[in-house]
């Protein structure tokens, strides 16, 4: 059992994995049972029946006839997807150009390096003052948090493309544009995709944080409102939905990687 990197049989893997989840669940249920014992109206550690009640509550419409959960889901996923897509595209284009053209790199590297060291969360209030409560606030905080680091990493990847391939493209009659687009971009595309996957976590982080302090719809906003009135049964469901969303993104990117970068996997 304590041999370093000694493989264990499959059944042990399954049993141990199940055990950890079962333990966590049992612990939670015990806590909620104790809380219920102290105060039957407790909502901080809701039990099973309360959670089911929370799920039902999700689909009830509010005074305006809208279903809060769907409004939140739509707002947050739109912000998330738009933010991630826009920052990936900007970083891909700028990063590849920086990696290929030293003049572009010389111009953009200093501000990008500086911005990548600033703490986006700490900048939130600055953005709030400058932009106010608008959709662009969420987009700006995501771009600010993602673009500098992602661009620099794409730039470094582009610079790692073997110079021989660049020279060979020229000797096959390529123009500089063609070298950038047909060779360097193709070569770093898997890195761009990987960078986008790794960024999706931080994007969600920044977004939820921004929604918590400056939104009137969205997951971050709702979680804050609900936890203020201690409706933890609904909060927990929101959290689980967020986790599921993250998992879904991961699977999506994996499938994309398999189809778009087959050559890289084979390497």
């Amino acid at each position, binding site marked *: 059992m304590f041999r370093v990197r000694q493989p264990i049989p499959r059944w042990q893997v399954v049993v141990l994995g199940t055990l950890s989840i079962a333990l966590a669940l049992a612990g939670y249920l015990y806590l909620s049972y104790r809380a219920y014992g102290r105060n039957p109206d407790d909502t901080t550690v809701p039990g099973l029946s309360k959670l089911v009640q929370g799920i039902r509550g999700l689909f009830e419409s509010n005074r305006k006839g809208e279903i809060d959960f769907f409004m939140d889901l739509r707002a947050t996923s739109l912000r998330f997807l738009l933010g991630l897509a826009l920052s990936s595209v900007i970083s891909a284009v700028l990063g590849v150009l920086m990696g290929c053209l030293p003049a572009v790199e010389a111009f953009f590297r200093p501000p990008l390096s500086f911005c990548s060291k600033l703490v986006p969360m700490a900048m939130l209030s600055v953005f709030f003052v400058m932009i106010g409560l608008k959709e662009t606030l969420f987009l700006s905080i995501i771009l600010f948090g993602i673009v500098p680091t992602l661009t620099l990493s794409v730039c470094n990847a582009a610079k790692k493309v*073997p110079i*021989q*391939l660049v*020279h*060979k*493209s*020229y*000797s*096959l*009659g*390529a*123009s500089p*544009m*063609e070298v950038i*687009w*047909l*060779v360097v971009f*193709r*070569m770093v595309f898997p890195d761009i995709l990987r960078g986008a996957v790794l960024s999706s976590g931080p994007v969600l982080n920044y977004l939820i944080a921004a929604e918590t302090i400056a939104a009137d719809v969205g997951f971050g906003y709702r979680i804050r409102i609900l936890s203020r009135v201690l409706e933890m049964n609904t909060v927990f469901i929101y959290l689980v939905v967020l986790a599921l969303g993250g998992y879904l993104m991961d699977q999506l990117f994996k499938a994309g990687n398999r189809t778009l970068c*087959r*050559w*890289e996997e*084979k*390497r």
Partner: protein
Amino acid sequence: MSESPVVDLQKVCQWFPKGDGVVRVLHNVSLAMGKQEVVSLVGPSGCGKSTLLYAILGTQPPKSGTVLVAGREVKTPGPDRGIVYQDYSLFPFLTALQNVALGLLLHNTSFPSRTFRPLKTWRLRREFRERAEDVLEKVGLKDHMHKLPSELSGGQRQRVAIAQAVIMNPAVLLLDEPLGALDSTTREQLQMFILEMVDLFHPSILFVTHDVEEALFLGDRVVGLSQHWKHEGDDPHPGATIVYDKVVPHSSSLEDKRQADFTELVEEIRRSVYKPPQLLPLHELGRHIQRNP
């Protein structure tokens, strides 16, 4: 060789800044290559063989002297010069076929024409693909055309790389130790392959190798580049230059070629290029240099 040379190097010198001083690599390298000639370039490791090749390729133009290819001075890389490296020989994201067809596409179409004239481009693409298929078939890679470079063996990769360069019909083909990374059996197969390519396509080739036997087997002529020559005067040694240049005795058939006994020539080249017992001034070394202009 009455016609004008395909490659004409005139007093090519190359040096690189290093710290406060310079590293002197090439000194007055002059070399003329005839059409369809296969020239093997040998020399000690680090003497500047690749540097000389890159001067012809145009990626590292010389600091002084001129490089003429087909009569025109070289300043940048271009489709009249093909290159095959030891590694990084293919674009990893393209199949063998796409790799070979790429040059035709890049050379004959442009970004705007591909975007705005899709129908014509589509027809051209098909034509290029057919031509690439044709070449790959000739070099015996018919069954591997749709594989990615990572799915090919090292030897197959180099075959594809040579096909990729040859299909452009360049004035000169520059090969920088293309067989350097291969095991000895594959290496022998690839040597035969290069001879077949020469028979099929008649390219002019400048072939860098560190294997003297290989140089004699493949080349019509062996050129030795070396820094081991005695420099008169107090200046620092100016770098490597051509210390050996000799036509390989002609063999009428491939069979003769394989049987040929090069032992003496090998010895001679080793003595003059690799570890000369004593450094001789250039004019004395010159007794081996037959063809230098």
